[in-house]
């Protein structure tokens, strides 16, 4: 007996030593966890150069004859960059009422004039949002040692908004003026020394409007479109451009052509395209999409500024630059049919400030017409009721419709009354064939097919309005920032496709290929999946009610 007592004692001690070792190892691991994961690179804090997203249009007009000394292109860019940065710094200070950073961009004598404004904004509890949209610089003087430069900034369009503390708009104004400016190179920075505001005198517009009226040709083509909204099956929405794969695009476009469509609507992600400085690689990818479309003789409607919900004035120049780059690059591309400037802009009326969205829309339409006067432009409204806004500005009115097919007729009629003879396009419609096992959602594929046929029926009656179906594929995964994080919203988005996730053609696909076919409806199919679950829960509740005092006693025992 004594022997095994000793044996137990040894085991006990060894056990404790092991325990202690494990615990110390564990504690060591915790400390290691706490001290790993930091990224060494962000130990070095280097002040950033010009913020990449503030990119107004800068044109150098031809210089005066005798500017003292000829100016080199590299210095021209540096001076323009520092001039834009100086104005941006003042605009930022007016917005935030904080004067830091002014010291770098204004000479000693000029700083009090900016500080006076900042103190006024700070004391009056308001914030002034201001942005210069374009600069046309005409060089007058450039000193021999390259330290002084005098130029005039002609016909500057600057927009202002005044808001109170809670962000309510008090006033907004657009004004044009010339600025005689003198800048001095000091401590490695070009600083504004003098500015005199002069009455604006206009400058000739470089982009000549299209006289051959090719737009009518595109409007005609629009009438006969049979379109599909397109995202690849595995990389929809935000993953499309980042993980772009030209082979999948070629395969999908061939499939779309086979299904009998002749137009595709795609979406350009504003942020991923680099906001103001458009990323060259992204332009190459968009060009590849257009070329694949021409190869399969499909035409494309390109929707811009996707996922951009920043309507502050400081973001206007960036949207302007991306619009200009994309439109001027692709306006002569054969596959391009039309531009959709903003997907469902009326949704932003809820989340953003209504006037700001409207101001941005007016601004961007005027610019779009200037950059590409050939292709028709529109905005895809989320609800037909809002589709009349700025209708006369657009070349055709496009709207989305997901409600019951029966109510589509009257919606079109009321819209037609408001926009009279403007051509209409239904740029998004569709029904999801989502049959959830848990939540009370149950649309069958047959309902989807019937919905498609009914919508086509109504469109034909209303003077065969062209339509673009949402969307080609059932997606494998949908991220939560598209339609909401709740599971039934996310899963619903997965089943709008014509082609199922496994690649098989769904019922709606057959209807599209040969529309006259009658849709067979099977009984069990309409029986909702979620009903089994609800039955089981019900049974469980009943059982719980009968056995209730047995459960109480069980609870007592545990807690005692």
């Amino acid at each position, binding site marked *: 007996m004594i022997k095994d007592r000793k044996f*137990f004692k040894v085991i*006990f*001690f060894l056990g*404790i*030593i092991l325990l*202690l*070792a494990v*615990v*110390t*190892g564990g*504690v*060591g*691991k*915790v*400390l*290691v*966890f*706490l*001290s*790993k*994961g*930091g*990224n*060494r*690179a*962000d*130990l*070095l*804090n*280097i*002040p*950033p150069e010009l913020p990449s997203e503030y990119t107004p249009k800068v044109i150098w007009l031809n210089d005066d004859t005798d500017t003292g000394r000829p100016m*080199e292109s*590299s*210095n021209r860019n*540096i001076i323009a960059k520092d001039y834009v940065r100086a104005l941006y710094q003042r605009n930022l200070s007016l917005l935030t009422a904080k004067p*830091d*950073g002014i*010291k*770098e961009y204004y000479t*000693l004598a000029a700083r009090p004039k900016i500080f006076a404004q900042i103190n006024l904004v700070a004391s009056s509890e308001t914030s002034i949002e201001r942005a210069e949209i374009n600069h046309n610089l005409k060089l007058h003087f450039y000193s021999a*040692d*390259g330290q002084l430069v005098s130029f005039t900034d002609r016909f500057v369009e600057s927009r202002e908004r005044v808001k109170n503390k809670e962000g309510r708009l008090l006033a907004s104004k657009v004004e044009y003026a010339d600025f005689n400016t003198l800048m001095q190179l000091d*401590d*490695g920075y070009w600083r504004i020394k003098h500015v005199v505001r002069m009455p604006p005198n206009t400058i000739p517009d470089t982009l000549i409007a299209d006289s051959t009226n090719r737009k009518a040709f595109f409007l005609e083509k629009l009438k006969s479109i049979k379109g599909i909204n397109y995202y690849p099956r595995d990389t929809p929405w935000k993953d499309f451009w980042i993980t772009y794969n030209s082979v999948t695009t070629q395969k999908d476009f061939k499939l779309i052509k086979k299904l009998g469509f002749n137009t595709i609507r795609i979406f350009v992600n504003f942020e991923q395209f680099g906001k103001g400085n458009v990323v*060259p690689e992204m332009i190459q990818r968009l060009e590849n999409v257009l070329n694949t479309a021409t190869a399969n003789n499909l035409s494309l409607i390109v929707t811009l500024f996707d996922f951009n919900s920043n309507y502050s004035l400081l973001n206007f120049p960036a949207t302007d630059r991306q619009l200009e780059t994309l439109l001027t690059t692709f306006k002569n591309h054969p596959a391009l049919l039309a531009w959709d400037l903003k997907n469902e802009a009326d949704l932003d009326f809820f989340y953003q400030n209504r006037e700001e969205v409207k101001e941005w829309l007016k601004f961007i339409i005027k610019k779009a017409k200037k950059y590409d006067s050939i292709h028709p432009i529109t905005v895809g409204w989320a609800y037909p009721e809002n589709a009349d806004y700025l209708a006369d500005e657009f070349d055709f009115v496009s709207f989305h419709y997901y409600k019951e097919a029966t109510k589509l007729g009257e919606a079109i009629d009321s819209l037609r009354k408001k926009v009279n003879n403007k051509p209409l396009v239904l740029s998004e419609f569709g029904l999801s064939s989502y049959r959830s096992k848990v939540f009370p959602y149950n649309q069958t594929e047959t309902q989807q097919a019937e919905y498609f046929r009914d919508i086509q029926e109504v469109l034909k009656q209303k003077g065969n309005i062209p339509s673009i179906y949402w969307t080609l594929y059932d997606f494998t995964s949908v991220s939560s920032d598209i339609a909401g994080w709740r599971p039934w919203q996310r899963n619903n988005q997965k089943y709008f496709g014509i082609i199922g996730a496994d690649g098989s053609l769904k019922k709606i696909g057959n209807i599209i290929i040969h529309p006259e076919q009658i849709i067979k409806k099977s009984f069990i199919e309409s029986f909702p999946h979620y009903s089994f679950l609800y039955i089981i829960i019900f049974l469980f509740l009943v059982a719980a009610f009968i056995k209730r005092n047995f459960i109480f006693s069980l609870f007592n025992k545990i807690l005692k």
Partner: protein
Amino acid sequence: MLQKSDKLLLIALSVGLVFHGTIFFFTFDETYDSFVHIFFADHYARSWFEPWDNRWYTGFNVTSYPPLVHQLTALLSFVFGLRIGFVLLAICTVQLLIVGAYRFSKLWTTPRAAGYAAIFTCFVSSIIETLHLFGQVPTLMGISCLLNALPEIYRWIRYGKHYRLATALSIMAVGVTSHHVTTIFGMVFFVAPVIGLAVLDSRIEKNKVENQNNWGLSLSMREVLKHGSLPLKITILDFLKETWLKRKQIMLFGLAIPIVMMFVFPYFYWSKTDPITQVSIPHGSRDSFIEVPSSGLMFFLIPLGIDLLLLPYIFSRVLTKRNIFIGLSFTLLLLFGTGGTTPIPKLMLGEDAFNILTLDRFTFWASIIAIPFIGEFFYRLIEGDFRDYLRLQIGIWPYHLIWSFITLGCITLVIFIINLSTFRPLQPSTIDTKPIIQFLERDQHDKWRFLTLGFGDQMAWLSAQTVSQSVDGNYHSARRLPEMTTRPLERLENSKFKGIQGLGSLQQFLTIPEKYYLKFVFSNDKFYDPILYFSGWERIQRLENGIMVWQKQDIPPLPSVLPEKNLPKFVKIYWGIMPLLALLLAFSINLLFVWYARFQKKSKYEDGYEKDFLTLPTIKTRLFILMGIWIFTLSTIIITVFVRLLLSSPNDSPTKVLTAYYDAVDFKYFTTAHGYFNPKTRSSFEDYFIKLSVEDGILASYAKLDNLYIVETKIDDETYELKATAEWITPVEQYITENIHKAVRYNGKWYIEQPKFDPTTPPDTFIDEAFLSIFGHGKRKAGVEPTAHEDFIDRPELKILSARMIKLDSTYVVVGELQNIDNQPAHITIQANLFDEYKRRLVSYNAKYVTIHRIMPKETIPFRIEFEETAWVKKDDLDPAKFNPKEFTKFDFKIPPKIFKLMVKAVVNKNDVYRSVGVQSVKEDGTKIVGDVLNYGTEEVSIPKLLIAFYDKNNKVKWVDTHFLRYSIRQQRMRGFVIERSIPKNYKDVYIGTDDDFYVNGLPNSSFHVPAQTKMLENHILLKNLESVSIRVDAFIGNPTIY
């Protein structure tokens, strides 16, 4: 409540106050870390609620270190100033520690013995080392809070009175906010055993009820058995049952711990992403103590000190049944304390934890656990039963001999530790920071960043007194004992600057200073002069305290808006309030409440803690014999080692004498070096010393011996030939020298032959030379406003003659040539920017050594620029343990560059214009070019650097290379050189620069006109393969006669 404390505690407190109070005033500025804590305190004194501090590492968050000690010093600094405040806080911490040790010892021994333990705490070698050598006051504060909290936890677990839980938690909260790691590990090694003890005691107490009379909470079960009539057995099962009964207290305490941890929530919130806390410091405590005896001494022998002698007694007391838990943690701590000697700690802790945690803290905790038992040993030895037993057994005088021997050993060890830094200095000698502070505050010098070289840890004291920012910081100081280390290069350890992971290496700071806005370097160590000079820095002033100020011209001032990693507002306020709140809470609960309870006569808070008393175990002769043997063996080992050290003289064997000679030269102990020469043939010391002192050059005065391999070949038993290959680390290059020495035995001792010196005598006795000296007024009217426009001197005009971008396997290099066409000497910065085909800038870098940074009017110089990225940014590349002159982090070109732009800037240069040095008898010898460098001027060239430019057929620079000569060249003397003629094999031109790629002072190269050089330049030596080479000399003058 406060028990009638033993008188000995009061003695201990006063001894501690006097002893530590006086000594810490003198030793704290020699320690490793006290200045770091003072710097943090200064931060809190300047901005309490804003944790962002710009002064180190281009800005970092002070939430990377628990704040209590720093905030208290900050508060004290408002009254006493930073230094005095810090010392006062340290003294209070030591007092708290003594009280803590006393109350902790009362858990294990009788109050009287606990009194002895309190006195002993003032002389515990590990505490003295932590205070006087490391200056780690937060660790002491953490451990004292832990020790004070343990008796409270014991009483809470045993008696379950809620008040005890409150006191325990409040003290631990203070512990967490001053040093969280102590508290976290304290859980495992201190709190758990004390909880185990409390449960065991409450189990034993049950026995008390049964046998009433002479109940004793005996320390060993057999004792209890003897007293009690009934056989008492405490099995493990009883123990577990008892723990189950106590589960309410244990669970409540367990749940409260995370809340206590939340007092430093921002530390945990932030340290996950803050790279500063994650730099792995090469630390002595992880070496194996056999290979690196100095770390062994520093992190094992010194902290344990007297415990080593009394180890058998401690183990006998600790491994009893009652103290089994603390016994286990003591053994485990000792095991971990041995660091790398055995693989077990690495296995247990896991690879990463082993590399991140410094292991000396485990030995420190082991020595803390040993305090009660050593106190008890001294009590029993001086007035307890040991005394009678020994007097009886071995007589009175031997007894006196024993205890005086032990106490004497203890005291000498203490004296040795405190004065360790005087024997072997840990830090460079103290630097008077006043002149530097004045320099930084004058003329807006604090609008740029500065860098200190050779300051060691005093850099933190300099930062604490100024607002201007430093590029590096002193967050971690690698605690090695430089002077004691065996490997010579270790001697560079603390003060030599190696660069910081994620920020850059020293070479990067000096080559592209404008990236860090770095303009001033304060150099306290001649070692760095060559790097600074050859990277383009110039000496402007030697301050009164001997520090040389170096400056780089043409650096833009810091922008007014600096990037900042902002913590949420709530976290900042939390960080400012919580630590002090914890302290106030602890103070109110423990002290004020005691007074209130006594006033109210609350019996609710009484518990039986004072009533039980612990009996000491009976003496066992076996213990004495064991201790006797152990002490005897230990002391003999120490004595033999000591004697062998004393007696062994270097002249015992040829290798030893040669190593001793190299060490002496490395340490510049010239008299001892002279002592090693063969007495027969050696010249007098004065003669040797004069000839040696004349020798200068990168090897003689700037190099540090890295390691030394000696091969002995016996000629006959009187003479040996020694082939010594030595690796030297110099600021710019690594050299391997081979020399043959002859060792001769002269009456029993080995000596080496004296090296011969250069006997050439210069032809002229007196040389005079016309010398260009320049002065620029700068701001002509003294005043605060910025320099007026007319006081600026124009930037000298340069002309870039040619430049091209070449590809060498995976890296890209820009080479070229430029001329100063102005009439004033120019200090130039050559920067190349590489662009890809979309005109996006990939990288920009400056020319480092491979050019001449100061050129005279009409002079042409070649240059070569290689591209680096910030050093050690990637996860796996480790910061090299020692200074690496060849440190180069290649920039990996993911996108191939297509074109480059060359930006050259010039400013008027005022000094370093020595040009009276040239190359002669240069000829081609096979694939090598040989020749001599001749100094025909009036200054001694400390380090001549050859700049070799290879030109292609149409006279454009093709490749440029440098070669540092090893020895200085005195006036009218010459040194030979041999250089490779080969151009790198995989050489491929990528882009030949045209005029509109070149910019001088921001203006295009084409706006400068200079007559073209049509004819083949004379100074291009034609080589066999029809290409030509030209060799220029860039002379660094160590100590110029005219500044």
